[in-house]
């Protein structure tokens, strides 16, 4: 009998793994103390984390919450802990948090921005969670762009209705001509003519920023806006743009820029790929110009230079101007992110769509964009987050975003010299919003992935 032959006579039964490789001990060994070097690093890291946290948590938690001024804060600190070092004075937040949230918006009208925010969530729900929410909510989404400015600035309901009617008109004209290029152009033209009639053109000199009806100028909408308190229902008290501020302003600019830059970015990305030379040249020129210029420059153009080019006496609302600039800025970046997604699609997808007889817009909407946007989700959300944080730059042109407000709060003798607490609060608010966007993008990526492979 050769040594190579072997026959098992008895089968082995299953045994437990050694206790050092499972459970808490196993996990610790595998992840933190797998060898001496890693064990030393683990201990060092824990020490650093402990050092940072003990300082930070001590400052955050052993703090003064009820104080009307920085001096009062300091007195309480000295009375309690014997020194002012290492203690936060959250009194400033307690004292001014409404201002940080709403700026100088009239307190009795706070319900309007709050309502606008709640409606924003309702309007976003069918877009963000299409599989969980009734598609009927999309009507809210469609109405929101017109409802929101009315709630924020007030004035007559006829103003947003008139603007919305322009879009409906453009759609109807475009559809009548079967979605062809001349139909598209005619649709846009008819809407512009309608808006000119509705808003009045050229913009009148005597018009001031009093409500949405007067933001753009005066015309049919203006005359309705001025007489409507008596005869037209749904009149809201107007709030002027100068009184907007705080997170309300950041969210307002951020939401508009995010909401408008995605469709604009898609169009720019498609234009950049177009066979039509002039369309392509315009898109490339626009994207490269905007990307080559700092946002601050564009904001300065919006706040000062634009007046030089507009007819004298024009008063073109500053927040609207900033929104347009931030949107254009975001759209240029968005276009490049989406172009990356388009480049990732094999040409076979275009050919597949073409061979079935889908026209250009159908192919883009049903085949190309769903895939290109899915590839670009991380980049798109990064751009969104970047834009939202960039809204703090408007403090440079004297708009009272949270950072601008922190300066004016410090200008008050009560709170002269307070920095960290304000910035910590502002940072926390931004973090909550940005972290939310980031988590949503991960959720979306996960969801689209499991459906596919």
């Amino acid at each position, binding site marked *: 009998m050769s040594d190579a032959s072997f026959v098992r006579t008895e089968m082995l039964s299953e045994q437990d793994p050694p206790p050092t490789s499972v459970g808490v001990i196993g996990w610790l060994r595998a992840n933190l103390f797998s060898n001496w070097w890693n064990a030393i690093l683990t201990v060092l890291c824990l020490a650093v984390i402990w050092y940072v946290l003990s300082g930070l948590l001590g400052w955050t938690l052993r703090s003064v919450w009820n104080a009307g001024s920085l001096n009062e804060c300091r007195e309480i600190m000295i009375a309690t802990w014997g020194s002012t070092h290492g203690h936060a004075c959250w009194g400033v937040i307690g004292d001014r948090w409404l201002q940080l949230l709403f700026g100088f918006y009239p307190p009795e009208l706070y319900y309007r921005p709050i309502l606008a925010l709640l409606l924003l969530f309702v309007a976003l729900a069918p877009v963000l969670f299409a599989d969980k929410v009734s598609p009927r909510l999309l009507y809210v989404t469609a109405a929101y762009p017109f409802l929101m400015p009315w709630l924020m600035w007030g004035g007559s309901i006829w103003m947003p209705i008139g603007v919305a009617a322009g879009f409906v008109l453009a759609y109807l004209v475009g559809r009548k001509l079967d979605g062809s290029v001349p139909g598209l152009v005619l649709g846009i033209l008819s809407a512009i003519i309608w808006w000119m009639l509705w808003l009045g053109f050229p913009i009148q000199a005597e018009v001031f920023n009093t409500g949405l009806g007067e933001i753009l100028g005066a015309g049919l909408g203006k005359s309705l806006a001025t007489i409507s308190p008596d005869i037209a229902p749904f009149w809201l008290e107007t709030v002027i743009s100068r009184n907007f501020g705080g997170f309300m302003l950041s969210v307002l600019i951020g939401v508009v820029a995010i909401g408008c830059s995605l469709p604009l970015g898609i169009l720019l990305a498609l234009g950049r790929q177009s066979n039509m030379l002039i369309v392509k040249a315009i898109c490339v020129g626009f994207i490269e110009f905007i990307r080559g210029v700092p946002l601050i420059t564009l904001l300065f153009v919006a706040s000062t230079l634009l007046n030089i080019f507009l007819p004298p006496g024009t008063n073109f609302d500053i927040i609207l101007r900033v929104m347009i600039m931030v949107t254009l800025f975001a759209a240029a970046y968005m276009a490049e992110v989406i172009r990356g997604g388009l480049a990732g699609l094999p040409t076979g997808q275009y050919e*597949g769509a*073409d*061979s*079935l*007889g889908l026209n250009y817009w159908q192919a883009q909407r*049903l085949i190309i964009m769903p*895939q290109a946007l899915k590839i670009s989700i991380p980049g798109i959300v990064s751009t969104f987050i970047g834009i939202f944080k960039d809204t703090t730059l408007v403090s440079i042109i004297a708009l009272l975003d949270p950072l601008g407000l922190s300066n004016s709060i410090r200008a008050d003798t009560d709170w002269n010299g307070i920095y960290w607490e304000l910035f910590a609060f502002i940072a926390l608010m931004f973090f909550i919003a940005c972290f939310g966007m980031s988590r949503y993008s991960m959720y979306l990526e996960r969801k689209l992935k499991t*459906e596919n492979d």
Partner: protein
Amino acid sequence: MAESMHDTMVEREIDRRKMQVSEEVAIQITDMNKWFGMFHVLRDIDLTVQKGERIVICGPSGSGKSTLIRCINRLEEHQTGQIVVEGTELTSDLKNIDKIRSEVGMCFQHFNLFPHLTILENCTLAPIWVRKIPKREAEETAMHFLEKVKIPEQAEKYPGQLSGGQQQRVAIARSLCMRPRIMLFDEPTSALDPEMIKEVLDTMIELAEEGMTMLCVTHEMGFARQVANRVIFMDDGQIVEQNEPEEFFNNPKSERTKLFLSQILGH
């Protein structure tokens, strides 16, 4: 030569009575030329395809055979000459192009299914959006054709979950859902594992038996012999030889054809 036929040759009795060629013209190509930049890919192509014809186009790579059938549904644009499909001439008029594309189905080497849609959605998309057929009806049609290609149970899956052969059969079903009058096949089996080629060829044979007008770029000579009523050999962007399959394979006239056939059948 016939004995050394490709080992995936499909052995089944086919019903030739239904495979009648009619006198009506489906595709008429006259004096057609195409260039890629300075490169003259298609030279003076003249081709008339009758309704119900099953034409296999073969030739060495780079001979322009794929480009030729891609010109028929305007995936490639020809520069001179005339292409008339089902009575409509292909010009730069987008309406005409979309009309012809909805009448002409196409299957690609790499299937080109839409990976973000289920099999059923792949099949119903064009009928719903191009033909404006109600969703329910489009789904019934889609299931009918998925049964025909023998994969109705995969309807809710995504293309990425299917094998290559299954994907190509879905691609065929997707084209059929548009009820096309002509089917173009651009090397439908070239990207498939050998054991999957048969299932795709079987589907194509069934289609031929139903009298579909077919133009097929392929190197499956067994398929050509069994199903085609005409084989076209292309080289250097020109039609070098065309004939009935028996005559084409057993008695090729041109030296190039002989060389080509000896190379693909001789191993």
